């Protein structure tokens, strides 16, 4: 889908059936055409290890489930703001 149409931001779980979320973020970062798209990881895993790992790989932000809607909105705004500024 990302190769066919532009999106403003991607939200991805780490535990998805078609591709490991970690692999997905890595592929996004490696693809010059997709690298500019901010990626928010949404996951139940709230360990510091995992959060740092995903941010290091290139995720723009990390939201742990369960979350309040305001938290997701704030993270989306921050990610979009950074993308437009960058």
């Amino acid at each position, binding site marked *: 889908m990302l190769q066919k149409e532009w999106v403003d931001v991607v939200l991805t779980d780490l*535990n998805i*059936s078609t591709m490991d979320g970690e692999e997905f973020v890595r592929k996004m970062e490696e693809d010059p055409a997709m690298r500019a798209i901010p990626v928010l990881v949404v*996951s*139940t*895993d*709230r*360990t*510091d*290890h*995992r959060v740092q790992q995903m941010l290091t790989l290139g995720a723009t932000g990390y939201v*742990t*489930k*369960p*979350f*309040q809607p305001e938290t997701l909105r704030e993270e989306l705004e921050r990610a979009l703001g950074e993308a437009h500024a960058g």
Partner: protein
Amino acid sequence: MPVSGIDGLLEEAAAEVLETTFFTGLSEGDGALRPLREPLLRTRVAFRGSPSGRLGIRVPAETGRQIAANFLGADAGETSDGRIAEVICELSNVVCGSELSRLEQESAFELLHPEIEPPETSGPRDNQAVRCSLVWKRESWRSGSNWSLSREHGQKDQGVNR
């Protein structure tokens, strides 16, 4: 951590998940066991790390439909069985992650994909309860806890297995 403390954490995790993500919560029910009036949907999610184990959820079909409708913002009557199963898998996933984070905040763990198990169709059960059980292995011992919540948001029915 004592097993008695795990019961509380599991309930705490489920309550938070149900409230923030599925727009429902825990409350009191009668807990009586009666012949099943409807199938029980069953999902499980395994996790690897320290600890390793699995979390299972068992939901009466109609309760599952209501939970799915809440989650999707859809009409319960228009929610397909496939979507209900996906939502209960997600419920398992989020409760499991939330519980593990409470148990072992410093440990890395990997949740595998939630799986749907064959529904239960017979036996004396609490027809209004959602039941969640957590079983894990740590070296040579094994333990678990469970609780349930009613359709009108839950009776605790705690038990401990060693």
